[in-house]
């Protein structure tokens, strides 16, 4: 029982350290930081001339100035409020309509085609109509955010519900769950990963729409700040604005990851085995 015959290949396994989830998250910061360092170096060495793109250090100064003069937090807060309200409205509508369309055939035929039509409508082109319908106030910005966030959430929710394993729905039926209970215990958790993905995309799309909205009669908002700076050729502010958006992107990703980790704990097992 010692040696081993010819073709067998030896696959020895040495113990792996137990997975430590905590520290690994920091790995994700490496590549953003590397990009930043690269950029600064390019700016310092003159590969990237200042008139074209300001160096990160310069942008940081601008950011500091904006932050200390108190404008930044105000702009950010206003934008966040608009985004949150719009996302809430658009998201609720999206999930409700997608659920109706995905679960009921008549809902599908009535709701889905108009949504498919509307999804391509460019926001910039809709602005004049929206001005007539909802005015030039906050409603306009919120409507645009709602519009932007609607589609990714709608489509991902719809697909998520459609892709649910029907065998599980059947099992739930035989457990005596009625329509609503099935929605709550089977459809919702089953579609949750897709919902999160939709949310991720919706947050991005909502922000993008907000920039369009904050060009119309806005005095505050991070989009306003940036687009005004663009008009007035203040590249450092524009780039700073972009960095704020990037930071928001990372932040929202982190938040969604945490939420996912909490609510989708059951999937870890699935991946592991």
């Amino acid at each position, binding site marked *: 029982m010692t040696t081993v015959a010819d073709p067998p290949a030896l696959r020895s396994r040495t113990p792996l350290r137990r997975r430590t989830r905590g520290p690994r998250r920091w790995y994700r910061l490496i590549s953003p930081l590397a990009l930043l360092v690269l950029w600064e170096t390019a700016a310092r060495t003159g590969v990237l001339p200042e008139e074209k793109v300001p160096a990160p250090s310069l942008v940081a100064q601008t950011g500091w100035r904006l932050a200390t003069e108190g404008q930044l937090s105000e702009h950010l807060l206003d934008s966040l409020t608009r985004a949150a309200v719009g996302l809430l409205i658009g998201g609720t509508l999206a999930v409700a309509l997608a659920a109706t369309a995905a679960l009921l055939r008549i809902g599908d035929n009535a709701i889905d085609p108009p949504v498919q039509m509307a999804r391509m409508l460019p926001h910039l082109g809709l602005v004049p109509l929206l*001005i007539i319908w909802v005015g030039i106030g906050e409603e306009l910005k919120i409507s645009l955010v709602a519009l932007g966030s609607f589609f990714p959430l709608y489509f991902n929710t719809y697909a998520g519900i459609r892709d649910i394993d029907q065998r599980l729905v059947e099992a739930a039926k035989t457990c005596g769950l009625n329509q609503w209970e099935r929605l709550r215990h089977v459809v919702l958790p089953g579609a949750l990963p897709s919902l999160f993905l939709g949310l991720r995309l919706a947050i991005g799309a909502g922000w993008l729409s907000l920039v369009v909205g904050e060009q119309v*009669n806005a005095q505050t908002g991070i989009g306003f700040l940036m687009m005004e700076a663009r*008009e007035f*050729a203040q590249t450092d502010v524009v780039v700073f604005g972009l960095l704020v958006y990037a930071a928001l992107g990372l932040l929202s990703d982190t938040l969604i990851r945490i939420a996912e980790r909490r609510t989708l704990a059951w999937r870890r097992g699935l991946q592991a085995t």
Partner: protein
Amino acid sequence: GGTESGASADSAPGKLRIGYQRFGGLSLAKARGDAPDAEWSLFESGPALTEALKAGAIDIGQTGEAPPIFAAAGKINFKIIGTSEPVPQGEAVLVKSAKGYRTFADLKGKTVALNKGSNVNWLLVKLLEQANLTIDDINVKYLKPAEGRPAFDSDQVDAWIIWDPYFALAEQPGVQILADATGLANNREYLLAAPEAVTGKADLIRSFLAKYRATTDWGIANPAERAKILSPELKIDEATTTRALARSAKPLTPITPEIGTELQTIADGFTKLGLIPVEVKIAERIDEQFNEALL
């Protein structure tokens, strides 16, 4: 611009790259084929044009009076190589006649829409000065032309300060001109050029400017034909085109230190309003070397 834009300017040394706006005087030059070899680029606004200037994507371009000031504040490198006669009737305050306003002072406490940081912003400063009002006496809504129109039409604002051709387009029945810039602002157009082009393509620019000057003069002399050429280009009906051009198309004129001072006044005014964070020396951007072509 840096080395890159210089390089791209050199890459097509025989070609002039012109940036224009639809309603600017350059449209006629393009439509008449004044520079068939040139590369023409259309921009939706002055700031967009100066952005391209910064990026080294165009050699010369034409804008209103505000964009060069902001571009200078944004450390964009360019020269002002020409201008036009004043166009005070090319911008105005519009109101609905049904509302019964008679002077600008009647707008106290009302909502007024305008595009922030463009020529009409300066006009507003002057109008307020004249009416002895401050900016806080009116309710300002900053709207771009494309958004101002639906807001004005649907009565979400009481007055709209706007320039041609939007001005002419908005002059529908029931709309009244409350005031224009006559006696308040000059509202000129300015020809801007990238520094590399000024040195590297001087001859091209000179010969183009001469043709451009002639074309503009021809247009002023033949308003009917001009409208016929430009109307399809602008996609505005001939009557409106004629009306707008009659008051807004003015002859080109050389740039002088006096005009530089005039521009500097506006720049200082914008600084005071907080529209630009720093003081700019716009007068220094003046480059008189092409003046004889515009005479």
